[in-house]
């Protein structure tokens, strides 16, 4: 267990684990199994959602400040010291806004769509391990399940675009759908490289297989797979330079044109949560997950995920938006072949290492 190397008191190194054990002991004394387990899971989920919500607010502020810095602007700097409370103000504003539903819209779908986007993007977090034995659910097909749950997002966006009864929203929704299914293939294929390397699809297993060397440094396949994963990941979360679905100048903000107030905030929350989730996945698959010296595991994973998010911000501040045909061309004719070749090379390498080729 690598968090044993953490030199601080157990309360710092493993507060979640301690809290879990404490609450479990408390509950187990009063109510019978499996209620404590269920209660603990529900509690964990609630806590996770709270953490994610707070993190998203920090992400928004960091992104605005960072992009402003890159573009030699000031960025938000009025609300609170250095504008840190800007996000809080924005959230309050969104919550207080009037909630509009267009007259021609398909009401039921219009209302459900943001949830279809948000719920899976939060569910993904229940599978990410924050430390040894510290995941709400550790399933043996973890990575597949993460990617499968992630694919619900497409559906929600498509539904939102359709339900808005607005040509631009519909076009935006279809653009997202086409983009997401195009980039899902290289994403999955490059995510399979660490799976092959670890011999397991369990996220914990993949992290543990990187005890000596992170997958991103496994030459020659690691860096390539990581790069493809990162690019496809950016496309999956619709961020610049792949943010065509919401290209304001072309289709008026795409699928969420008609959304306002709280419902808009849900899309917003999902998008930033997804960005961070891609960071966390990249950390788990390629950057050794929660493993790292001195600091507690959960801090390491958070750092790594946030670092990847910062790379996304950097890219957003630097690169211009792609044209749609360039996007498709890159996805199918560049990213996909590279990821397939990488996967094939990994398979050959793995069987060479295991000596099962002949």
């Amino acid at each position, binding site marked *: 267990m690598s968090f044993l190397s953490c030199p601080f008191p157990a309360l710092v190194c493993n507060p979640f684990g301690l809290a879990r054990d404490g609450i479990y002991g408390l509950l187990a004394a009063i109510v019978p199994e499996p209620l404590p387990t269920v209660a603990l899971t529900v509690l964990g989920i609630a806590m996770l959602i709270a953490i994610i919500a707070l993190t998203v607010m920090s992400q928004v502020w960091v992104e605005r400040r960072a992009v402003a810095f890159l573009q030699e602007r000031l960025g938000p700097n009025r609300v609170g010291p250095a504008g840190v409370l800007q996000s809080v103000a924005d959230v309050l504003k969104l919550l207080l806004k009037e909630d509009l539903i267009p007259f021609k819209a*398909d009401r039921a779908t219009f209302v459900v769509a943001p949830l279809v986007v948000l719920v899976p993007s939060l569910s993904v977090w229940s599978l990410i391990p924050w430390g040894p034995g510290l995941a709400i659910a550790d399933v*043996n097909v973890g990575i*597949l399940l993460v990617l*499968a749950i992630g*694919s619900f997002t497409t*559906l929600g966006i498509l539904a939102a675009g359709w339900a808005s009864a607005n040509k631009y929203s519909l076009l935006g929704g279809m653009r997202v759908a086409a983009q997401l299914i195009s980039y899902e293939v290289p994403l999955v294929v490059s995510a399979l490289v660490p799976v092959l390397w670890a011999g397991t699809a369990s996220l914990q297993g993949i992290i543990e297989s990187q005890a000596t060397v992170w997958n991103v440094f496994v030459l020659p396949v690691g860096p390539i797979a990581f790069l493809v994963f990162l690019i496809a990941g950016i496309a999956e979360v619709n961020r610049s330079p792949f943010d065509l679905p919401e290209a304001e100048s072309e289709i008026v903000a795409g699928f969420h044109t008609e959304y306002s107030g709280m419902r808009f905030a849900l899309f917003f929350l999902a998008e930033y949560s997804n960005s961070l989730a891609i960071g966390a996945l990249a950390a788990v698959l390629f950057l050794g997950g929660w493993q790292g010296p001195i600091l507690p595991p959960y801090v390491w994973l958070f750092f790594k995920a946030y670092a990847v998010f910062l790379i996304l911000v950097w890219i957003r501040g630097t690169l211009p938006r792609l044209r749609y045909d360039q996007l498709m061309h890159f996805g199918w004719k560049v990213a996909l072949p590279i990821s397939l070749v990488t996967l094939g090379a990994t398979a050959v390498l793995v069987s060479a290492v295991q000596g099962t080729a002949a």
Partner: protein
Amino acid sequence: MVIPMELLVAGGFYTFAAAAIAGAISLIIARNVFHSALFLTLTLASAGGVFVILGADFLAAVQLLIYVGAVMILILFGLMLTPQDVELPNLSTPGQAISGAIVAAAIFVVSAATLLSAQWSGTAAEPSDVATTEQIGVSLFTTFVLPFEIASVLFLVAMIGAIVIARER
């Protein structure tokens, strides 16, 4: 009092089964094609949940990944590329619809009666819960290598066929 694990499993099964069947029925009843598609998603995802309970984790993930991630999107695309006229009644002529329902009900009755009256030997009380991903992979490349190859050829043909058929001339 201890709640047996079996009851939890049963609860999960019934929830997912009910959702799956409800989704399937709503799919048929819904007047709006887009709603049908959303209900189909519900059915497919619930079937994935049933797979988990029946001990097929890998298949559940595959179900979500392929159906929700690909097939559903494909269907929704098809929907949007073929504007739907809502004036027509969405069911066939009453005679066709009713006789269809009768035949479907008869199929259900016959198969249910058969499977309930059969003597199932060589079955376990609980689903076997083993890590099956690797075994599925191994059997795909050994025992079922021929069907596997045929399926890949089928994919190729389907891909080319779909492109050729749907291409604008």
